[in-house]
C-alpha cells in the first residue's frame, strides 16, 4: 500500500493587506507598523493558496497536511483557518523572541520545526508575504534543508518520487519537475483558496495546535540575531497633483479628457 504523502505548509500571520490606506500607520520611533484598530490580522493570502494546493493534492489521493507557523501574538481564530479549510494539524512556534525575525532567523526556526515534525514529501509556502514582501523564506528553507525549490506554482502535482510544477512566469509558464522532497512556493494563479465549511470550522475548533518552544527546537535567542537590520520604516509622502476633468455630465467629462490629453500631445 502506498503511504500517504506528508505535506508541510508554512504560513504567516500578517496585518490585513486590505487595511484602508487611511488606517495604515507606522510608528517611526520604533520602525513598526501600528496595528489598525478593529482590523484583525489574517493568514497571508499567498499562504492560503499554498494551503489550497496541499488540499487539492489531499482531495486527489491520500495526504496529510501539516501547517507550520512562526511568530508571536497569534490570533487563534485566524491561525486555525487552514485547519477549517481541511488541513490536519497546526504546529506553532510562538514566543516574544520570534517577533520581527529577519528571513535567515525565520528559516532557522522553520527548518528546525520541519526536522522535528518531518519527514515531509513536499514543503509548500506562499510566493511572498504581504507584510515585508521579501519572497525568500522558502528559498532559504530549501537551501538550509539541502532541497530543490520551485517558485510561483500555479499547479502542483506529485508523481511517483517527484513533483511536477507549473511555474507562472510573466509571459506564460514553465513545467518543472523536481525530486521529492522539495520546496514549492505557490502563487495566486493557482486559483482561489477554498472557503472553510461549517463542518470544517467545527472540526477545527476541536483541534488544538501543537506548540514548540525554542528549547524544543534546539535554538537560542542568540541564533536569531538579524543580519539585515531595519534602519528606517516610513510612509512615503505623496502630494496629489491630479487635475480632475469635469464636464456637463460624465460623457462630456470623458470627451474633455480626450481633448486635454491630445492638447498635451499625450495621445
Amino acid at each position: 500500500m502506498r503511504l500517504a504523502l506528508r505535506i508541510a505548509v508554512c504560513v504567516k500571520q500578517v496585518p490585513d493587506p486590505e487595511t484602508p490606506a487611511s488606517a495604515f500607520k507606522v510608528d517611526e520611533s520604533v520602525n513598526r507598523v501600528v496595528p489598525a484598530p478593529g482590523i484583525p490580522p489574517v493568514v497571508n493570502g499567498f499562504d492560503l493558496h499554498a494551503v489550497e494546493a496541499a488540499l487539492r493534492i489531499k482531495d486527489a489521493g491520500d495526504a496529510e497536511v501539516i501547517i507550520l507557523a512562526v511568530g508571536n501574538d497569534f490570533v487563534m481564530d485566524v491561525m486555525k483557518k487552514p485547519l477549517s479549510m481541511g488541513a490536519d494539524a497546526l504546529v506553532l512556534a510562538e514566543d516574544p523572541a520570534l517577533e520581527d525575525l529577519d528571513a535567515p532567523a525565520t528559516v532557522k526556526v522553520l527548518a528546525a520545526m520541519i526536522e522535528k515534525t518531518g519527514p515531509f514529501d513536499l514543503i509548500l509556502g506562499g510566493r511572498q508575504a504581504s507584510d515585508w514582501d521579501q519572497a525568500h523564506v522558502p528559498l532559504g528553507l530549501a537551501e538550509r534543508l539541502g532541497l530543490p525549490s520551485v517558485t510561483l506554482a500555479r499547479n502542483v502535482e506529485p508523481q511517483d518520487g517527484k513533483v511536477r510544477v507549473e511555474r507562472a512566469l510573466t509571459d506564460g509558464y514553465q513545467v518543472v519537475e523536481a525530486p521529492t522532497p522539495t520546496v514549492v512556493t505557490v502563487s495566486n494563479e493557482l486559483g482561489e483558496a477554498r472557503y472553510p465549511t461549517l463542518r470544517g470550522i467545527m472540526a477545527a475548533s476541536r483541534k488544538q495546535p501543537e506548540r514548540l518552544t525554542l528549547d524544543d527546537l534546539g535554538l537560542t535567542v542568540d541564533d536569531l540575531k538579524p543580519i539585515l537590520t531595519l534602519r528606517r520604516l516610513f510612509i512615503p509622502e505623496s502630494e496629489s497633483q491630479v487635475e480632475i476633468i469635469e464636464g456637463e455630465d460624465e460623457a462630456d467629462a470623458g470627451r474633455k479628457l480626450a481633448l486635454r490629453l491630445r492638447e498635451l500631445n499625450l495621445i
Partner: protein
Amino acid sequence: MAGILVIGEIQDGGISAVSGELLTAAGKLVDEGVSGGVSLAVMGDDLSAVTAAQAPGAERVIRMSDPALKDEGTGGYDAPVLAVAALNESISPDVILFAKTDFGAVAGPRVAFKLGVAVAQDCIDVALDSETGRVAVTRPVFGGNALAIYGFNGGGTQIATIRPGVFDPVEGEGSGTVEDFDVSDAVSGVRTILVETVVQESEGVRLEDADVIISGGRGLGGPEPFEQLQELADLLGGAVGASRAACDAGWIDHSYQIGLTGKSVKPTVYLSVGISGASQHMAGLSGARNIVAINKDGDANIFKSARFGVIGDWEKVLPAFTATVRDLAG
C-alpha cells in the same frame, strides 16, 4: 578582492536591458565610494555573442558557459546558484546585484542562503553608508504602503535584487575585458528539470514595451468591458492591462496583470479604468509617466498618483472618450 559583481541576464544572445539597469545601480555605488571595480557575469550555454561593448561601466565581463546553464539553468535555477557561488569564492565581491526578475528573485536569495549572507529583495535604491562602509538599500514593504531602509550589518557579501525599471539602463559602449570562468565542476548535481516553457504572449503590443496602456480593474464588473478597453488600445496603438483583482476574478488572463505580482510597465500614458489603485497595483507603475484615472470613487487611491482624472461611471465616461479619440484620429 572586492568590488561589485553584477549578475547579468541574456536576451537575444546579448546582455539584456535590465542588466544595463544593474550597471547603473553599480555605478551609483562606485560614485559613492565602493572600490574594487565592477564585474558583470553572464551565464548560458552559448555566450559567444556577449561582448564587453554591451556592458558599459564594467571593468570586466565574466562568461560562465555550460550546457547546464542553458535557459537560465531551468526553473529551479540550481546550476546558476552553484555557478555564482563558485565565482563568489573566486573573486570575493563586496556586493552582488541581481535584477528582481523571474530568475533573479530566486537565484539571488538562494545564493545568499548558500553563502550564509544577507539579501534584500526588490530594492528601489542602493547607497553606500559612509559611516559603516556598508551598503544600505531602500525597498517598498507592506505592498508598497511603506518604504523600509535596511543596512547590511555583520560581514560577508551584500546581496540585493533590484526592481526592474527603477534605474535607467547604462548608456554608451563598454571597454572592459572579457574572460571565461570555468564552472563545469561547480554545476553538477542539478535536481530540477525544465520539461517545457509555454509562452503566452498577450496579442499585439507587449505590455512592458507599450507607450499607452488601457487598464481595467474590479470596477469593470466582468470580462466583457475588456473588449472596449482593447478597442481603445487598438486605436491608440497601445496594450491592455489589468489589476490583480480583475485577473483573479477570471475576467482576463494573468499575463495581463500589472503590479507587485505581475508586470512592471513604463508607458507614457496609463489610463486606468475602474481601478482603485491599491499599493500592490501601483508598485507596477513606478515607471508610468502620466497616470490617467477614471473611477467613480473620488477618494480612490489611484487619484493620489494620477495626473488627470475623471470622477464618474466608466460606462458613461469611456465610450465618449473613445469616440473623441476616434474623431481626433479622423
